[in-house]
């Protein structure tokens, strides 16, 4: 049974119509001990069902640990979003199933890096970010509801 209603699927399809760069989602998974990996896979499939511009690359956390580590992901389910044919790292990561409001965060991230929606940061913020020269990792803790 699909997670998204037909109306929501159509809304997604329309939002994705503006995609100008393909998106690759690296999906770090593991066979045993990942309670939400199946749910995450289903959520990601719902996205790829409505657009060919988003592809999923599954990486097994145990069998392909080096590749997962190259994205800084040591948990499953974990997502890394890459943009363009060149699969440029957007430095956007998600740990845990992108369910509830987090699903919209994932969609927003895809729309942003694919060119379908513009960067919405203010000029002041962009100026501040230009002054960031040291690596900065920002964890944002959320819950599904």
């Amino acid at each position, binding site marked *: 049974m699909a997670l998204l209603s037909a109306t929501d699927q159509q809304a997604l399809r329309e939002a994705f119509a503006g995609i100008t760069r393909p998106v690759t989602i690296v999906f770090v998974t593991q066979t045993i001990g990942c309670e939400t990996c199946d749910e995450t896979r289903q959520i990601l499939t719902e996205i790829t069902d409505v657009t060919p511009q988003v592809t999923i690359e599954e990486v097994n956390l145990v069998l392909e640990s080096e590749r997962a580590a190259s994205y800084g992901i040591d948990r499953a389910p974990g997502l890394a979003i890459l943009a363009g044919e060149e699969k440029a790292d957007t430095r956007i990561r998600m740990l845990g199933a992108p369910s509830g409001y987090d699903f919209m965060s994932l969609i927003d991230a895809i729309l942003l890096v694919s060119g379908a929606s513009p960067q919405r*940061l203010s000029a002041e913020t962009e100026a501040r970010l230009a002054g960031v020269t040291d690596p900065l990792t920002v964890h944002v803790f959320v819950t599904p509801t």
Partner: protein
Amino acid sequence: MAFASEHITSITVQATEFHDLARKHRVSGVPKTVASNGAEILGAYPEQQFVEELLGPVAPDAQS
């Protein structure tokens, strides 16, 4: 911000799935933002305030 800056990595974490990470960063409510520079922000803030909390206030000489 991660997309806009090559130095910033953004990691959204489902606190209910990764209790150890939530405990490590003393997450008592969501959303909670914890940055590697020591900044901690509990709650959702407007963009400008969030950026100031995260990166610190703009230095006085930078405002001239």
